[in-house]
């Protein structure tokens, strides 16, 4: 009877389970444990202390109960900022990433049977290069924070210097990831204060900070407080004079209307690309954007797709400059990254193609406009002031008397307020970082303001 091992639903995923005995026979073995005889007895276990498997129906029912313990944007409109915000995802994008030819594929190591994905990556690289004003984009890194870490490492590899300069107006999370990425290489991080009035960088601080050990300099635009930095050209000039590399972090959506970093002299552009067609996913489904100028391409981390020909001269695509990568170069690779964020990258490519230049600019404008509108609505309420006077995109910092109280009251009223900044930024006590996008309806904004009025 062993040929009909009663596994029920499992058979759907393990087709040979009923053939165990006959297949063992053909191997000349009697028992499945003969195949595990190389495991020493003293470390063998007989079973895992986990519950028995559930049917698909039972599994769905269990997950429905768990789902009910969450309040998503649909039930709880949220104005949380901090770089991650909900955006509308066109059904076309969802349809493309739902094609199993894409989402179940492995990394395209065999180019002849992966031409579809390879071409899509090439198109993603092309569109990211266009957006950022760079020559080359890689095929993605894990997220914006690790992209910053990789950028710092790349700068020190190219310049053979050991200091990387960052402004204080970037997120705590990013600084923390950067610290971990740069520790092994012995890189010193120099953090520069921002202008307390505008929320922007202080160019004089940059001027003072750069020295012969400065490998790279970072600027984020818009920065963590949502504010556009308008002195990129000045920083670029300083970098050039000092022979340091200039790294700019972007919210790609802002590039529909804002100057691209290539226009003001960046050498490397990084960013979090999640907003390009990927779900909030509780902060997952991230997309690390990494682009640079041609002269640095041999030091770029991660995968790179090139356009080439096949044996008969037909256009074809493949992974290229692989001697930079870990599977060839091992400890001398430009990065340890292997699996990246392939599907999130495909979503971004589809999203950009679906919007086109007109749609993308309109969406960018709408997000900017929403940011201005909401800021004006909130600051009209007595007790809520705009913290910084620099021009902002779709996020901004609001100060009030008791941010925690406001946050709690809003939550009780069915609205999720802005991100509390006090714990990570002691000088921004009672400040909240608000974010708004095309997904927030007018009524959400009015409800928010109404509640703020009641709290104040």
């Amino acid at each position, binding site marked *: 009877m062993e040929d009909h091992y009663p596994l029920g639903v499992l058979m759907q*995923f393990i087709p*040979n389970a009923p053939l165990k005995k006959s297949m063992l026979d053909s*191997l000349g073995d009697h028992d499945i444990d003969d195949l595990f005889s190389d*495991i*020493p007895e003293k470390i063998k*276990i007989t079973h895992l202390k*986990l*519950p028995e498997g559930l049917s698909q129906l039972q*599994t*769905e029912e269990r997950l429905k109960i*768990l*789902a009910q313990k*969450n*309040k*998503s*944007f649909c039930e709880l409109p949220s104005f949380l900022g901090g770089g*991650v*915000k909900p955006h509308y995802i066109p059904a076309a994008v969802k349809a493309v990433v739902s094609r*199993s*030819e*894409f989402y*179940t*594929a492995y*990394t395209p*190591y065999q180019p*002849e049977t992966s031409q579809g994905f390879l071409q899509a990556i090439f198109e993603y690289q*092309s569109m990211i*290069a266009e957006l950022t004003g760079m020559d080359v984009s890689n095929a993605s890194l894990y*997220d914006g924070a690790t992209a910053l870490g990789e950028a710092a490492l790349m700068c020190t590899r190219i310049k053979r210097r050991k200091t990387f300069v960052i402004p204080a107006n970037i997120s705590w*999370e990013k600084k923390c990831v950067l610290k*971990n990425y740069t520790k092994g290489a012995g890189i010193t991080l120099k953090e520069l204060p921002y202008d307390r009035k505008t929320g922007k960088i202080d160019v004089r601080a940059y001027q003072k900070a750069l020295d012969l050990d400065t490998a790279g300099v970072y600027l984020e635009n818009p920065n963590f407080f949502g504010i556009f930095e*308008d002195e990129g050209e000045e920083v670029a000039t300083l970098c050039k004079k000092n022979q340091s590399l200039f790294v700019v972090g972007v919210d790609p959506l802002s*590039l529909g*209307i804002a*100057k691209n970093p290539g*226009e003001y002299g960046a050498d490397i552009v990084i960013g979090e690309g999640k907003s390009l067609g990927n779900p909030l996913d*509780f*902060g*997952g*489904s991230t997309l690390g954007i990494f682009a640079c100028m041609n002269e640095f391409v041999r030091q770029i981390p991660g995968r790179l797709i*090139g*356009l*080439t020909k*096949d044996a008969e001269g*037909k256009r074809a695509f493949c992974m290229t400059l692989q001697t930079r990568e*870990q*599977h060839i*170069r*091992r*400890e001398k690779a430009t*990065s340890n990254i*292997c*699996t990246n*964020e392939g*599907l999130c990258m495909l979503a971004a490519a589809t999203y950009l*193609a679906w919007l086109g230049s007109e*749609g993308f600019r309109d969406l960018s404008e709408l997000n*900017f*406009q929403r940011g201005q509108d909401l800021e004006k609505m909130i600051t009209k309420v007595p007790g809520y002031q705009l913290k910084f006077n620099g021009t902002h995109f779709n996020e901004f910092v609001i100060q009030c008397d008791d941010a925690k109280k406001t946050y709690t009251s809003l939550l009780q009223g069915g609205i*999720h307020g802005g991100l509390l900044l006090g714990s990570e930024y002691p000088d921004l006590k009672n400040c909240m970082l608000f974010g708004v996008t095309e997904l927030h309806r007018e009524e959400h904004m009015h409800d928010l303001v109404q509640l703020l009025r009641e709290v104040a």
Partner: protein
Amino acid sequence: MYRSAVYDEPLLKELEDHHEKEHSSSLQSLPKALQRSTALPLPNLDETQVMRHFFHLSQMNYGIESGIYPLGSCTMKYNPKICEEISRWEPFSLLHPSQDASTIQGTLQIMYELEAMLCEISGMDHFTLQPAAGAQGEFTGLLLARAFHETQKDFTRDEVILPDTSHGTNPASAAMAGYKVIEIPSTEDGTVNLESLEKGLSEKTACFMLTNPNTLGIFESDIVEIARLVHKAGALLYYDGANMNAIMGKARPGDMGFDIVHLNLHKTFSTPHGGGGPGSGPVGVKQRLERFLPVPRVVKRGPTYYLEYDYPDSIGKIKAGYGNFSSLLKAYVYILLMGSNGLKETSEIAVLNANYMKKKLVDSGSYTLPGRALRKHEFVLSCEDLLTKRGIRASDVAKRLLDYGLHPPTVYFPHLVKEALMIEPTESESKKTLDLYIETLLKIAQEDPAVVKNAPYNLVVRRVDEVGAVKNPIFTWKDLPKKTEPS
């Protein structure tokens, strides 16, 4: 069998048939200095064009539903549809990472329970779900090792030892974490050479990294002794979990003596590879390393779950957010579906399938199997005989398999085996499919070498010129007009 569609699919940019209209900005408040001065150069297409384009591309791409995908060390198993569907439910997919804990209890419970499940499966005490992939798990693990040693005022340990059969990410991660990499040669059998290990270990060793079963599919039977030697030297033992699909419910790295473990949820736990991500590489540790784990940790107080940041010895963060949540959710659903028996059955059949294929292929005489006979979930054949006798290389066999609608195995890895074909069928394939794959490999070995060496013929392109791609690099469509001659 799978047949690729053949389209001469233009680039998105080449599909465009109208140019953008003049656009007058209604924006007053974005200062001129901040505004884009050039037109945004994205293609303007309608939805039909976009969908046909990506549909065509998808039809020229092999996925797990196209057929068997036996890439060694990659565990390309079938991905149950239910996992995908649940991961797209809005109560999970539409949550902001900074939402108040009271509004995300379901998600936190899933993370908390998944950590416990992974602890049980691997025999570890605590897990972090933050790493975005296996390589990031390795990097995290090595940062933990450094924190551990430094806390003990041990600052001399700057070396990581690993066998020459290890995955390329191992040495790359060690280097990124600031360690010197010491590679030790394996025995002829392909396992850890205890003598070399003992010689390599010293007061400078931070960590020994090992995959078990190793990349040849061989279980390191000396593992208990290996652990004893590593610990005696004051070093830590790291488990690369890429091959965990071989031993679930049979043995656990925690019981073998490993201190740090990463698991690849996109391999063993079937969250798909996504064409190369998003992945997930959770890291498990023994109790003595818990305090160094990344923050936040998911904790439970009474009936309520929280994200806790208050761990002063933590290494901090290695990624934005808390990991690729949709992958975590899919793995959680997968483990619920399989349960204790199902996971054990998974490993048993994965190993049975591999040994079944191995025996038939080796018995045929066309391919050889360097090293010991008993394998776990994968095995590495050599095409050296084929090369000497008929001039056929491993890469030729791989390309010829494509003509028959089958995905090739991993080739030329591990480097220890000449002309390597690394085959991992997984538990997802039926005996019929395994037989077909075996027959096809044997058939190729008998084919006219000239035919095999020029394969493939039946796909959208013939053999791709990878050397040309390096010599004449074209990374974006901006590079096109100036660098390619008109066809």
